[in-house]
C-alpha cells in the first residue's frame, strides 16, 4: 500500500517537474551558446547544424525559420538596458552604432513574432533608410504616438520585442561577447 502510494506520488511529481521544466524552457527561450551584448542576445549556433536541442524544440514549436549562419545573425531584445520590459505604451530610444555588417534591419514584433498594426505601416528600419547624424549615429524612437525622425510605432501593445538582424557580418559562432563591438543602447523615456 505504501509502495503504491509512494510510486504514484513519485510519478505525479516527476510528470509535474519534467513537463513544467519543458514548458518553462521553451516559453522562456533557453538555448546554449548565447551571445549577449547589452540588452541584445543572439544564438548564432541556432542558424547552423550545431543547433542545440532546446533551440530546435523552440523553433519547431513556433514555426519560424532561423537566420542561417552564412546569411546573418539575429539579436533579440525584450527589455531596455536597465531591464525594463518593452511596454508599447512607453517611449524607448534605441541609439548608437552597430557591429560591422553589410546591411542590417531592425523589426518590432509582439512576443509571438507577429508584426504590430499601425497607421503608417512601419514595422522596422533598414540600414539604408534610417536617418543618421553627421557621425553616422542614429536614434530610433519606439513610441505609441508619432515622433519626428526615426519613429517606430509600438501600436500601444502591452509588450513588444525588437529583433536586430545583421546580414553578411563577420559576427558568428566564434565571436566572443567582448570583441563583438557595440550594439545600440536602449533607454526608456517615460510612459504615457
Amino acid at each position, binding site marked *: 500500500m505504501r509502495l503504491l502510494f*509512494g510510486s504514484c*506520488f*513519485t*510519478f*505525479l*511529481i*516527476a*510528470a*509535474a*517537474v*519534467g*513537463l513544467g*521544466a*519543458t514548458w518553462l*524552457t*521553451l516559453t522562456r527561450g533557453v538555448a546554449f551558446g548565447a551571445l549577449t551584448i547589452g540588452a541584445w542576445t543572439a544564438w548564432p549556433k541556432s*542558424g*547552423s*547544424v550545431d*543547433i542545440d*536541442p532546446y533551440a*530546435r*524544440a523552440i*523553433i*519547431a*514549436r*513556433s*514555426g*519560424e*525559420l*532561423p*537566420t*542561417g*549562419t*552564412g*546569411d*546573418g545573425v*539575429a539579436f533579440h531584445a525584450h527589455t531596455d538596458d536597465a531591464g525594463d520590459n518593452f511596454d508599447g505604451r512607453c517611449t524607448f530610444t534605441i541609439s548608437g552604432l552597430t557591429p560591422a555588417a*553589410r*546591411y542590417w*534591419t531592425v*523589426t518590432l*514584433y509582439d512576443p509571438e*513574432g*507577429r*508584426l*504590430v*498594426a*499601425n497607421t503608417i505601416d512601419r*514595422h*522596422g528600419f*533598414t*540600414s*539604408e*533608410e534610417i536617418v543618421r547624424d553627421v557621425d553616422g549615429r542614429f536614434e530610433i524612437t519606439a513610441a505609441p504616438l508619432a515622433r519626428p525622425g526615426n519613429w517606430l510605432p509600438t*501600436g500601444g501593445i502591452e509588450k513588444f520585442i525588437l*529583433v536586430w*538582424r545583421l*546580414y*553578411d557580418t563577420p559576427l558568428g559562432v566564434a565571436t566572443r561577447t567582448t570583441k563583438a563591438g557595440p550594439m545600440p543602447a536602449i533607454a526608456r523615456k517615460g510612459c504615457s
Partner: protein
Amino acid sequence: MIRAILWILAAILLGGIVHLSTVLAMPQAAKQDAYSRLTPLTPVNAMVPLTAPTAEAAIMPFMDPAFAGAVCRYDLTGGSLKLTAPVSQAYTSVTFYTRKSVAYYAINDRAAGRRTIELDLMTPEQHAQVPEEEDVTAADRLIIESPTTMGLIVLRALAPEPGLMIMARRALAGATCGIQPAQ
C-alpha cells in the same frame, strides 16, 4: 523520513528524464513547424514567392518584413535538384533547411560571387554517384549535400527601402528550382 526523501529524489530524477525526452521529441511532434505551414501553400520542387508578412497574417512568425522571399519545398527522391537565383541589387541570400527547420547551409550573393547563384542540391548517396571527373571539371559547380531527403530552400532579397520591394520581388521571380533528369 529517509524513505520520503528517496521517493522525492526518484521523482526529481524521473522528472529530469521526462523533461529531456519531451524536449528531444518536440521537433517530431510539432505540427505547426515551418515545413508543415508551407506544405499547403507550395508545390514540391518549384520556386514560389512567399507572401510578405503583415500585422494581420504571416506564414511564419519572425519573418523580416524588409525582405522579399521565395521558397522551394524540395524532395530529392526523384533525383538531384538544380537551383538558380539571380542576384538582386542590394542583398540576396539562399538558406537551406532540413525537414525539421535546421539551417544546414546558407550563402549570400557576395560569397557566391556572381550575378546568378547556381547550386546543385543532392543527398550524400546521389553525390557519391556523381562521376569524379565531372566533379573536378565543373569547378564552378557548387554542390550542396542535403542531410534529409526533404526540406526547404529559402531565397531572401533585401528591399533597402519599402519602394524597392517590387524590384526585390522581381529579382526573385527569375529564380528556379527543379529536379535534374538523371544522366
